[in-house]
């Protein structure tokens, strides 16, 4: 068994040129919390690692009209950033703070959690509800993809073989944003179900827009806009919250794993979506 080659590019251009040359035999390495498990278990055997730690600019946090988080920004930095916490994007910091344990969050990155596309993750669920997009770079240029399109299924993304996720762009969220992480086991566990709600309400508490996303229950975050439509134009009542919860429970596809059966997840979705919307009703 040959030792994988280790590359430490100094620029984004160098990084994507390397990736374009090496193709699928190489893997980008950010925090390594996920990649190390895959390698240790023999699930991937890359011939080369392209380590991104020395690439300047990938660790930027920028707040303007959008929140921009570089691919190498760690969970812990998002969690601890006072600028983010004091901004309209505080819910993003709160969500990253709920991932695993401090040791993992010190290492795991924004780019990593999105490119791994592990179904049992927290940030993608909230970020899809916020309409986030990712900026991808390749030797031939740059493109932006909606996160909801980027994550395609279990460990599958729209990332091309020569592309690097450079940063995450989160538009200014509506006034009411919540993310509920439901753990069925240890407090350090991955989510059994995640529910994100992003809603705009007017001065009379009438709901003007509503996005509800459920995550960690199947290959990718799921959203059912038609189920949310009944909430628009009026105050959300307990009955409406319950009805949307029921609809989501019926419409969502769920899987079984160590954290709960598919049927249990269906029951939870009804409860957690309703509870999330009840806070709007209150």
């Amino acid at each position, binding site marked *: *068994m040959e030792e994988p080659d280790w590359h430490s590019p100094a620029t984004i251009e160098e990084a994507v040129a390397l990736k374009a040359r090496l193709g699928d035999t190489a893997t980008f390495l950010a925090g390594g919390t996920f990649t190390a*498990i895959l390698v240790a278990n023999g699930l991937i055997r890359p011939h080369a690692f392209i380590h991104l730690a020395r690439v300047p600019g990938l660790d930027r946090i920028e707040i303007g009209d959008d929140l921009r988080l570089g691919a190498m920004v760690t969970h812990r930095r998002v969690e601890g950033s006072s600028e983010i916490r004091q901004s309209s994007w505080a819910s993003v910091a709160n969500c990253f703070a709920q991932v695993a*344990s401090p040791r993992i969050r010190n290492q795991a990155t924004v780019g990593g959690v999105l490119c791994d596309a592990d179904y049992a993750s927290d940030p993608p669920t909230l970020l899809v509800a916020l309409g986030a997009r990712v900026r991808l770079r390749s030797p031939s240029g740059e493109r932006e993809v909606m996160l909801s399109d980027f994550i395609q299924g279990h460990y599958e993304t729209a990332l091309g073989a020569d592309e690097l996720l450079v940063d995450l762009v989160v538009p200014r969220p509506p006034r009411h944003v919540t993310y509920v992480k*439901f753990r*069925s*086991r*240890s*407090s*350090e*566990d*991955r989510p059994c179900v995640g529910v994100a709600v992003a809603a705009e309400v007017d001065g009379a508490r009438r709901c003007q827009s509503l996005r509800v996303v459920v995550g960690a229950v199947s290959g990718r975050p799921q959203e059912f806009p038609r189920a949310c439509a009944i909430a628009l134009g009026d105050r959300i009542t307990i009955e409406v919250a319950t009805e949307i919860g029921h609809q989501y429970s019926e419409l969502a596809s769920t899987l079984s794993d*160590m954290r*709960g*059966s598919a049927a*249990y997840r269906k*029951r*939870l979705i009804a*409860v*957690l979506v309703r509870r999330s919307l009840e806070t709007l009703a209150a």
Partner: protein
Amino acid sequence: MTLDPRITGRFEYGQDQQVEGMLHARILRSPHAHAKVLSINTSEVPQHVVTLTRDDVADLEPLYGPMVKDQPIVARDRVLHVGDAVAAVAAGTPREAEEAIALVEVEYEEMPAVFDPVDATGDAAPLLHDGIEIPAELRPDGRNMCHRFRLRSGLGQDGFERADVVVEDTFAVAAAAHVAMEPHATLAYWEAGRLHVITGTQTPFNVRRDLAALFRLSEEMIRIVVAPMGGSFGAKTFMRLEPVAAALARKARRPVRAVLTRAEEFITINRHPARFHIRLGATRDGTFVAKSVDAWWNTGAYADCGPSVCTKGGYAAIGPYRIPNVNVDSRCVYTHLPPAGAFRGYAATQGVWASERMTDLMADRLGIDPLTLRLRNLLRNGDSFATGEVMHDVRFADCLRKAAEAVDWGGGRKNKGLAVMLKGMQTPSRTGVALEINAGGHIVLRSATTDMGQRPETAQRNLAAEALGLSPDLVTVGSNDTDLVPFDTRTTSSRSTFMMSNAIREAANDLRRKIAQRFEVAPEDLVLSDEGAGVAGSPDLRRPLTDLTGLRGDGTFVTPGGLDPDTGQGIASSHWHQAAASAEVSVDPETGVTSITRLHTAVYAGNVVDRPGAELQNEGSTIFGIGTARFEGIVFEDGQVTNGNLSDYEIPSILDVPDFTYDLLEGGEHSHGLGEMAVPVVPAAIGNAVAAAGHPVRNLPITAESVLDASLVR
């Protein structure tokens, strides 16, 4: 300031041991639950890597095992579980060994496998072991059964005719992993025909005896040096890596170290999955009159100490109650799962879960407060347990009352649960210890008690110092080496402090006698202090301890006992571990998530000799119990562990540990072991609290989903 090497990272655990020229071992493991091994081809393995297959051990005893000789060093004609060792290699680096093991080619022919103990006793079930000899006293009476423990007292089953009310139910407990931070680790080498093994084990003398039998040597030709363990919790009892490391070292003519990976831990030794059907009969006023326990223990592919687990769990499920008519049938059955063995809370965890959930079901049926019902039936001093033995030094009611008070039981019992248990200690049992005066005038304590993180040296130094009238600073603990320490049965079943306290007292008396002989006085006239030894009334005769170098006192303590294999009558335990727990929970009725709002354990500690150590043991036991209660369970699919890593198999993190409280009840003549007393009672108390909240769960772990499934109201 000298920092504890355990904190600085300089402490040398089993996996840190090394000697010059050492090779690293890896084991090739079966991907099948049951298969014929048609061929093993090692020709692709580089020449400088040492390989070990069945052909290399053909001159040795074919099988080993602490109770039933049923396990080969590497597979002979068949593999019996996913993870069964097929071959091994030793190479210059761990990486080289890992690469070499992938080059060994094995041709298998898959065979039908059985994973359920009841199914395994069926006529059509595949037979795991052919031609092995199961000791007659284990009374196996079915296909694939390695032991059947029976207990009959009073009228047995006929006793139910005297009951006004009979309740019965079925309970199950999942397999669990020990998850010691340090994995199994062993280093073996041969020198002039003598086998030296440096290993993390709780059972050095069992390992020495069993290696001697396996390698056809006298026990004197084997030396076991116990490395301190980074946790064990029962996993490092009896032989694990010692046979394969010793066999590889023999072939390599070099030292060989074997260290397991985390994934291998899950297929090496686990806690027994167990299932119980229990019937309990009582009169209307709540007096227990009859109980039957029908238990099945899934010991996996090898018996290990499963028969002993089956016995102890069989009588633990009776509970600490006066019941005139008892019938226990507890069966230990082979299946094609990875083997199960000793686990902190040894068999009591499973038995107490079933028994104490049943006690609450009876309380419900009779409409009697669960505390009142227990107090009415608890064993008292002078009562006979179902084994016929008379109970002494009984504190069950005290433990239970303390537990009940801690959750304000009198203030209402909504969402609250109680549990009380008796747990046996290894009986019969023998402990030897020696106290030697060394050249520096220190007392060297020669003890085989192994250190798995509980730091027994503190307790034992205190005991020796007290018995001799010296300060603990003058007592040092010698190397744990079978060449140097007297025989001790093993460091298990929370027996060491009890057994050692008695043996150390004997050894101290013996040493005082020897010193008194030097002074030619009677032992009672001897005055011993940190300043030296002297004679009462004659201060000028005092001599420093350095003048007494080489004097040695020996002490032995033996507990007799044992149970009749057909009736379960006799002495089950020379003294009884006694504990109770109480819990209060809140349950989210829509998600099944349980929060523990109060948790208390009350443990009979007797004479406490190391207060911080005792407290840490009980706190650790409580957290262990929380893990078992809430989410620890190994999941198998066709015999394959599907959660064999610490992401899918979770243990409690510090955030999962609620504030809890405890009492260590003192008094009596003896030191009582308390290394695992909270483990069995905590899950049962939590389970009873969850049931009191309207979710009568029957199985461990109590997952959120199972709580929802057990809801009385949907």
